[in-house]
């Protein structure tokens, strides 16, 4: 349910650095990857330079996520003051808990405000935006 | 030697920082009128240089701005062989002037070549319109 109010207003870009480069490279190819430690078989997000479980820095890898999960929490932007002007109101930002156990934030796709609530099953989809960047969103899926 | 500027480059402008250092505004306002203004504590007469909101000697916040005679001596100097900013043509000298009232100011020389610079050399202020919106106090040989 995100629509753009004014396409001249830039959509803020993710800040890409050496620690999260591969995450955003994958998004560009319509894939969601999650950082994973080979040694202790654990996933974590956001990307970081060290495994918080075993403190290893050379056992980190990127694994493709199923992209499926549930809405864990959400916020609905309804008022001008708080919202970013590029987006049409209202719009939602959801915190989704993926099957791999990590949580990520994104917008929703073709979901009515009343359909958005914790526990609703969702899956990822990608969109190449008008400004050249690729972002992911979540849409409803069957449970 | 006066400083030579690259005409197409902007000389670092004090106004850019005057927002941060509002206490300096009377100094730069004075320079526009070709006066060298110094801040002095009204209560105990201590020079407040660089400008500040309180006298460190008597803790009074009452101060006044008075015009300097503009006479002084070279206290120290450096010569830039590599330009730290594209506005300046190298080599050029920067001097630290001790005014006869006591305060010291950083400035340039109007008519003294680097080889002739001597610590203790008597100098007096002169004002140079270096850009449409910028006048700078500089120093030349006294008398």
């Amino acid at each position, binding site marked *: 349910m995100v629509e753009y109010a004014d396409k001249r207003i830039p959509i803020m870009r993710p*800040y890409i650095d050496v620690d999260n480069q591969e995450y955003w490279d994958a998004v560009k190819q319509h894939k969601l990857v999650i950082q994973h430690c080979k040694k202790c078989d654990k996933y974590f997000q956001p990307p*970081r*330079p060290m495994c918080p479980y075993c403190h290893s820095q050379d056992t980190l890898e990127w694994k493709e996520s199923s992209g499926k999960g549930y809405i864990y929490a959400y916020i609905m932007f309804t008022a001008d003051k708080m919202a970013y002007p590029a987006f049409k109101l209202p719009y939602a930002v959801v915190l989704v808990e993926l099957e791999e156990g990590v949580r990520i934030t994104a917008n929703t796709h073709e979901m009515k405000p009343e359909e958005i609530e914790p526990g609703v099953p969702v899956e990822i989809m990608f969109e190449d935006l008008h400004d050249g960047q690729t972002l992911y969103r979540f849409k409803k899926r069957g449970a | 030697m006066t400083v030579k500027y690259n005409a197409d480059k902007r000389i670092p402008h004090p106004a850019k920082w005057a927002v*941060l250092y509002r206490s300096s505004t009377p100094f730069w306002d004075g320079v526009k009128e070709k006066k060298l203004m110094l801040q002095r504590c009204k209560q105990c007469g201590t020079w407040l240089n660089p400008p500040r909101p309180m006298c460190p000697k008597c803790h009074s916040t009452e101060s006044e701005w008075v015009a300097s005679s503009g006479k002084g001596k070279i206290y*120290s100097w*450096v010569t830039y062989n590599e330009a730290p900013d594209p506005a300046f043509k190298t080599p050029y000298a*920067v001097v630290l002037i001790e005014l006869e009232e006591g305060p010291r100011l950083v400035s*340039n020389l109007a008519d003294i070549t680097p080889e002739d610079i001597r610590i203790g050399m008597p100098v007096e202020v002169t004002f140079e319109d270096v850009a449409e919106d910028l006048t700078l106090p500089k120093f030349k040989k006294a008398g």
Partner: protein
Amino acid sequence: MAKKSIKDKTNRAKSGAKSRKTGHSMAKNSIKNKTAIVGIGVVNFSKNIGRSEWYTASQCIKLAADDAGVNIYDIDGMVKNIDDGPDPSYVQKGLGIDNLTYHSESHWGTSAMMNAVQAIASGAANYCVYYQPAHRASGPEKSISDYRVARETRDDSLDLIRYDFFSPFGLIGQTGYVGMTYQRYMYEFGVKPEQIGWIPVVESESAARNPNAIFFDKPITIKDYLNSRMVVNPMREYDVAPKVDGAIAIIITTTERARDLKHKPVIISSCAFGMAPEGQFHTSYTRDSITELPEMKNMARELFRIAGVSPKDIKAAMLDDTFIPYVPMQLEALGFCGRGEGAAFCEGGDRIRPGGELPINTDGGSFGQGKLDMTRIVEAVRQIRGTSTNQIDNADMILVASGAGGPADGLILRG
């Protein structure tokens, strides 16, 4: 500012630690010998480390914990310099520490040591890490968070300066700022480049023997120094420490706990900080004298008072050589020689070499390794442990000084 202005208002200096107003002696808790450095972690320096500061911050803390024999999850305090590297909330994401009970950030030099020492001495934390990842050679790094914003909007060469009184005249950058002071120092005391040039010469000798000092494979000569590029007259290329990418962490705990850990404890006999009136980072031009580093003098008085020792007890000194001309001024301010005698002290290099009267920067200093303040603490620790690449005899009391030209801080470490 002369006569009428702020005369040397360091009255406190003359009367010891007494309140200027009441004359009462000021009660100060002594931290003497209460804390110790138990671990050091150094990520190999490079001109382009190819990693994020976040990565090397995590890495150096892990190395320090391994060195100390401390479990990472037992680290409960973190301090750092405000401008260097990601804050604890980032570092924690890799280290997974969940019981951080103390953190703080400090400006200038290695003054965060004071925070660490106070945190441990007061019991606010049991194991405090001080970390400094700084990739200054490959440029301010790009990462996510307000720390990035801070790095991008605050050029560290211009921080804390009254730009508006300097920049329009082309006085831009620290090398020029320090040059102004150096010129006056030469004038007042007849100091010559042929004298202070021995500092980089001796440091390059030490650097050549230290594998982590990447800038000098072989020593330079005094001739090389004098022939080095004049950047801002009187400052030569070899008067300024080069930029480097590196990361260092050290772990501090109580002296009592330190005795049960892997290494012989390096006891923090004293830790002090100093400021002085009319101070402005590298540009305190309005003081009566601009060549005596009064912050360093004030710091030294407190440093020696706490430790209960005097300069003659110090076996080696790790001084702030970010700008070489500050080294002789520090020797004077710290009481190793008289006013105006610092350059003569260094001339010929014999007094300041390993084995000399007062060896300085036996790791090659910032000149040999690149500008990263914590190297001085690391080398002091190595000297006391007996593991320096330029080991001196009887290294049982080492002084560390940082922050020359601005608020100063220092340590006296002992075995």
